[in-house]
């Protein structure tokens, strides 16, 4: 007996409750119809887009339909989305890009507020029915309704802060009025998404139902039978200025740790807003519009929006059909194990193999711990672990669509692995190496199918770093590369196409930055000061800490390889680094590198404090230039040499692989903003002072003009 494997796929469209199927009054983006109970179902289905976002057109049409609905004598109004993915993903950021006139933004925001207020002021019961994502402007729309019903699986959040903004369509006052103000501020300050269960607990939604009960739940809400959540005692206390001031002080301190005010003004503006006007809706509204408009035209927000579009651009490269369902990972070290765990979490069927059974078991243990933290239900955790098969015999190879090799960085070892596995691989399977330093041209020697061989270079930690360098070489087939890009999309990673060249893009650019830090350390600058200079510039962590995190052994290997294979002028690798690696102090993974770490990999606090005396040189801008400009210089060289196609890929890759100061919009964008000429002049000065390694690359000329 064969049963269609997609019975549910056939029936699924019937599951969604969108109100009456017939007699809808269509507009471009919205449509509505009154059901037999007299409830109007207003459905958003933004035309020409797969996701609902709030553009100016969508908002002004909402204004029109709200006016029409008011005349229908409806018993109640339901707002929901027709898109499979969710309710509304937020404002259409394309509308905000490149705006410079705060006054004009203010006028636009005031109009948008009027429309949302119109919804909030409707006399009849209004119900937002929310499935999937409900973010930013979408959540503000939902907050303007009297009731919110969540379909299980819905998630809510204000991600504006990640774009250097805060909510601008009433979120700053409607959310604290609805739920515990501290929780509300936390949501807005962190940009974190809350899932259905938490949303119910917070009182963000009145009810959580399954799709099949939406209609009954709407009726109950319209009939006034659902109990809306009450704001607790905390809300009342925080109505008092003194209590708010105390809470605000704590929030500022927290925000400063994650997002220093000089780089990220938005969180601090949000706290100001709430401290000053909390509880006073009218004042909050006015202040929110002004603050939002000022932030929007500011450099941080515009740069972070650039980052958003850089991500969208890389995501587009990951579209398409990968044909990968089964992944076989060879090597259960940190990288291999984490790659396997991540792939399984994203739905791939994974086999993980290693010569050492204990390494495989350890990787499974790490995966389970990661799933406990990151996957929301025990069922998801179980399924992810079920998909991650410890493969002691390497049997997964035979059915794998993609084989990822992550064994020791030795060409001989890798080639031996290839020799053993290639006869067992499927005819159309892709073989990928996670090498960071061995040329693909060396590794492909003797391969029966160099066309299906390529590089998939992940970054550590795999679960946090979104970028994957997809490494091409002149014998790799277009088809295999396209499939590899699509695979990155399948597992929610961002592919950056790079050519096979020493260090590819990211490590090649990172190495001069790290080696310069080592040189400064040799010159007697305390490591803490070096790290502080980089952090002042906006890096998430300093180069010394980063080197520890990457692993000093890997740094050493990559630096030696680059020195050997490139004629880029570079500092000598210091002797102490070699000695440290030989002694096994390879960084965080070993518990000791340049800093010391506890078992959990946290910095030991006594280590951080040393040498922070008055005598030590202060971190300054010149120090930052010495670290950052060689990185920029190398990136320009890579661009000139064609290692990477364009500036967007460079900027995206550095941000999503290394966390390069996001508010600066990417390294090359930073150079352009600072002025290419100015950067070149500074490099020349550094060259005079410190040596040829700072000599500006010829590629800077391409960026001029």
């Amino acid at each position, binding site marked *: 007996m064969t049963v269609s494997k997609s019975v549910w796929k056939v029936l699924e469209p019937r599951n969604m409750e969108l109100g009456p199927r017939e007699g809808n009054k269509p507009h471009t983006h919205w449509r509505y119809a009154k059901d037999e109970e007299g409830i109007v179902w207003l459905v958003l289905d933004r035309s020409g887009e797969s996701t609902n976002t709030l553009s100016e057109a969508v908002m002004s049409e909402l204004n029109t339909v709200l006016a029409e609905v008011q005349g229908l004598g409806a018993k109640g109004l339901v707002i929901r989305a027709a898109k499979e993915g969710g309710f509304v993903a937020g404002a259409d950021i394309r509308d905000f890009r490149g705006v410079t006139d705060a006054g004009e933004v203010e006028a636009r925001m005031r109009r948008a507020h009027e429309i949302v207020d119109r919804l909030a002021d409707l006399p009849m019961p209004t119900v937002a029915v929310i499935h999937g994502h409900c973010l930013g402007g979408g959540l503000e729309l939902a907050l303007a309704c009297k009731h919110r019903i969540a379909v299980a699986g819905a998630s809510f959040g204000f991600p504006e802060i990640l774009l250097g903004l805060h909510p601008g369509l009433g979120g700053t006052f409607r959310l604290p009025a609805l739920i515990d103000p501290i929780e509300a501020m936390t949501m807005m300050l962190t940009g974190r998404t809350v899932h259905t269960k938490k949303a119910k607990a917070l009182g963000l939604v009145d009810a959580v139902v399954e799709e099949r009960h939406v209609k009954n739940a709407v009726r109950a809400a319209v009939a006034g039978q659902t109990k809306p959540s009450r704001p607790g005692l905390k809300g009342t206390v925080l109505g008092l200025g003194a209590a708010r001031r105390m809470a605000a002080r704590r929030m500022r301190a927290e925000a400063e740790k994650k997002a220093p005010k000089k780089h990220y003004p938005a969180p601090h503006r949000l706290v100001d807003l709430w401290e000053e006007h909390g509880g006073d809706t009218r004042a909050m509204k006015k202040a929110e519009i002004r603050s939002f408009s000022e932030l929007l035209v500011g450099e941080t927000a515009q740069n972070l929006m650039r980052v958003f579009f850089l991500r969208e651009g890389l995501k587009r490269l990951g579209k398409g059909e990968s044909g990968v369902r089964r992944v076989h990972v060879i090597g259960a070290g940190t990288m291999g194990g984490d790659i396997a765990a991540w792939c399984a979490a994203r739905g791939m*069927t994974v*086999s993980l193999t290693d010569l050492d*059974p204990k390494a495989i078991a350890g990787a*499974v243990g790490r995966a*389970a711990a990661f799933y406990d933290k990151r996957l929301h239900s025990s069922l998801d955790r179980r399924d992810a672990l*079920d998909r991650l*098969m*410890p493969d002691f015999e390497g049997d*997964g190879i035979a059915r794998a669509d993609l084989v990822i090799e992550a064994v020791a960085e030795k060409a001989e070892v890798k080639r031996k692995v290839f020799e053993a596995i290639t006869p067992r691989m499927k005819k159309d399977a892709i073989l990928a190496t996670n090498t960071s330093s061995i040329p693909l041209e060396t590794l492909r020697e003797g391969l029966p199918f160099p066309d299906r061989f390529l590089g998939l270079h992940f970054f550590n930690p795999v679960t946090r770093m979104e970028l994957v360098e997809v490494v091409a070489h002149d014998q790799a087939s277009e088809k295999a590369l396209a499939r590899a890009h699509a695979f990155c999309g399948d597992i929610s990673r961002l592919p950056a196409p790079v050519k096979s060249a020493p260090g590819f893009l990211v490590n090649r650019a990172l190495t001069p930055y790290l080696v310069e830090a080592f040189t400064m350390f040799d010159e007697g600058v305390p490591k803490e000061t070096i790290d502080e200079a980089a952090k002042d510039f906006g890096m998430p962590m300093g180069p010394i800490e980063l080197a520890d995190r990457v692993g000093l052994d890997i740094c050493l290997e990559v630096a030696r390889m680059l020195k050997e294979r490139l004629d880029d002028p570079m500092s000598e690798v210091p002797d102490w680094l070699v000695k440290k690696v030989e002694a096994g102090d390879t960084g965080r993974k070993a518990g000791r590198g340049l800093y010391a770490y506890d078992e959990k990999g946290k910095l030991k606090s006594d280590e951080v404090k040393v040498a922070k005396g008055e005598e030590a040189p202060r971190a300054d801008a010149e120090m930052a230039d010495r670290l950052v400009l060689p990185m920029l210089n190398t990136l320009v060289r890579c661009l000139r040499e064609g290692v990477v196609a364009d500036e967007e890929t460079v900027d995206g890759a550095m941000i999503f692989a290394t966390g390069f100061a996001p508010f600066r919009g990417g390294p090359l964008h930073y150079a352009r903003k600072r002025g290419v000429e100015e950067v070149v002049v500074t490099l020349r000065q550094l060259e005079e002072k410190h040596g040829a390694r700072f000599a500006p690359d010829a590629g800077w000329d391409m960026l001029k003009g």
Partner: protein
Amino acid sequence: MAEASKTKPTQRRRSPRRTSTAKPAARGPSGVSQDRARPVYLVDGARTPFLRARGKPGPFTPVDLAVQCGRPLLARQPFAAEDFDFVILGCVNVIADEMNPARVAALRLGMGDAMRAFSVQINCGSGMLSIDNGFRMIEAGKADLVLAGGAEALSYAPLVLSSNAAAWFGRFAMAKTAWERVAAIGAFRPDMAKPVIGLERGLTDPVTDLGMGQTAEVIGHIFGIAREAADAYALESHQRLARAQAEGHLKGEVIVSVARDGTLYDHDDGVRPDTSMEKLAKLKPAFEKPYGEVTPGNSSQITDGASWVVLASEEAVKKHKLEPLARVVDSEWAALDPSIMGLGPTLCCTALAERRGLAREDIDLWELNEAFAAQVLACLAAWEDEEYCRKVLGLEAPYGAIPRDRLNVDGGAISLGHPVGTSGNRIVLHLVNAMRRLGLKRGMASECIGGGQGGAMLLEVV
């Protein structure tokens, strides 16, 4: 069945019931014409290490175990997991979260939403019953590929409320008013708080109220099995398993399992290679104090484990270019007085061999599940017992002695443990692997079954 009509239906049957021992007739036991019956092959199989229950739930539930050994087994097949027609799983102590564990396992193994799966239960024979079910389906042309297994996590056996405690709780939960509730609380008796260990009840025959160990005491006594003989048997079981482990005879059959905390389980951990006659002699009787002779040392161990075998038709073998390990030739089930359930194997094995026209010497290798040393030895003694063979087995002469070097050659449930729903599957799988290693042709796997039954399966290496 001709015998059935001889007994009065109102009276409880005392004589053992088994299938006619007549030679293969036009129709076999499954109702399929023997000459039309399709050959059925066992092409692969794997199990988890058997893990001793250590007084608390172990690292794996029954289905977790089935997934642990099922994933690599499926991964090494040349066909897709979706290509199976049925999944059948034997499991006795199904946990509440895993009703129809066969289907739960099939889905968790990624065999597809359309995979049909059912669970079977005949106590200690469940893992063999699953093979028998798949065997008969393929034989009858109703399936080509069947995944048949057994899974059991005895460490998960629940604490059960006594029935009067359960009744009290029901009354308390139903109480609507405060007054009713107070009255209900007043009806509570302290002894209700004492939970019944589910496992203990599970290992007690519900009809005769005899513990399984007691049934071993009964037949040990009947056939004069001395404590020393039982202990010696147990000692050898441990030594045989230890040797098999050391020499790598279990490679491919036992698949390493990994718990979610990253712990590696790579061998049957009940084995005690350092045990001795002196140590075994010190153990106190476990079931009938103070004079009983069945001790924890000469009984099977309480254990968690799972096992699967892949069954295939001739067509499936050709289609997927499989290399069969053995052919499943025939199977037989028998039943008798529950208080002497340990003799079950003598009934079904003899009947099966007779039907196939096989003498004792024609069977090259035996797996007889080691529920208790005294029970295995009682079966062996029964086969040499003139009266038993004549009156019970219907043989003209004693069946004869089964050479010890042809029986449970790599140890058994005494050293490995006895996850009840799994053991029947394991002995079939291991019988096949052992025959291939030793270059033997024909083997019999059999187990006694709590409740008074026995199961046997005949296999031939191809």
